[in-house]
C-alpha cells in the first residue's frame, strides 16, 4: 500500500505533535497570583471541542511515528508510539467529558512519554520505562 510521508520525525514533532500537545497543556491547570487563581480550562463547548481535535492529533501522531521510514525500531519506539495513541485518546475522552482534572493528569502523562522518547533516542539513555513516572 503506498503512502507519502511529508517529512522526517522532527517534522512530525514540529508541525503535528508539539502544537497539539501544547494546546492540551494550555487547556488545564491554573495561574495563581495575589489577586486569586485563574482556571485555564475551556469555558465553552467550542473550546472543549478544540481540545478534542488536538487530542486526536496527539493520538494520530503515534500512528505517524509507526510508519516505515519514521519508525526507528520495533522495541521502545513502538511501545512509546502506541502509548502516545492511548494517551491521546484519554485526552479526547477527558475533553469530551469536560473533565479538566483528568485532562491535567493526561497532560502530565503526555510529557512523560515525550521525555522517555527523548531520553532514549536523543540522549542515548539505554533503558527507560516509557510509561514510568
Amino acid at each position, binding site marked *: 500500500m503506498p503512502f507519502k510521508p511529508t517529512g522526517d520525525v522532527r517534522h512530525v*514533532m514540529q508541525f503535528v505533535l508539539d502544537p497539539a500537545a501544547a494546546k492540551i497543556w494550555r487547556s488545564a*491547570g491554573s495561574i*495563581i497570583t495575589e489577586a486569586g487563581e485563574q482556571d485555564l480550562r475551556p469555558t465553552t463547548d467550542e473550546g472543549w471541542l478544540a481540545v478534542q481535535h488536538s487530542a486526536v492529533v496527539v493520538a*494520530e501522531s503515534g500512528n*505517524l511515528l509507526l*510508519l516505515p521510514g519514521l519508525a526507528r525500531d520495533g522495541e521502545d519506539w513502538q511501545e512509546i508510539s502506541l502509548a502516545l495513541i492511548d494517551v491521546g485518546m484519554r485526552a479526547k475522552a477527558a475533553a469530551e467529558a469536560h473533565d479538566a482534572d483528568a485532562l491535567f493528569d493526561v*497532560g502530565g502523562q503526555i510529557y512523560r512519554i515525550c521525555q522517555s522518547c*527523548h*531520553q532514549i533516542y*536523543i540522549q542515548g539513555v539505554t533503558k527507560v520505562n516509557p510509561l514510568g513516572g
Partner: protein
Amino acid sequence: MSFKQISMLVGLALAICTPVQLSAHHAFGAEFDPNRPLILRGPVLKVEWVNPHAWIHLEVTKEDGSKESWMVEGGTPNTLLRRGINKNSLKPGTFIVVDGYQSKDRSNRANGRDITFADGRKLFMGSTGTGAPKDRSDPTDQ
C-alpha cells in the same frame, strides 16, 4: 485502504489545521546555560501550575535595593506534588530560595533545581532526564 493509512491521513488533515508555535517542551540545553548557575531569593509573585512545566515567578531584590521579577521553570505539577510541593506551598508572598541555571538569552528566566523554603525544607523542583547538569540535585540522577 488500511487502518494505518486512514490514521495517517486523518492525522495529517488535522495537523494542517493546527497553527505552528514554539514548543513548551524542550531539552535543558536548548534554553538554559549550564555555565550560568545562580541562586534567587525572594517572595513568590505568581505560579503557573501548568504542564509540561510549572513556572514560579519571584521577586528578587538586587544589591542596589532595586527589585526585579524572575521566572523559574520546574518539573511537571504531578512530579512536584510527589516531592511535596503544591500550590499551597507556593502561595504568593511565600519566601523561597531557588538554585538553578539562567537562560542562554540572559533574560530573567531560569531552570530551577532545588527550592528551599523558610522552614529549611530543601526539595528538588526540576525535571528529570532533560540533560541538565549532574549537580547532585536530582536524586534520581546521581
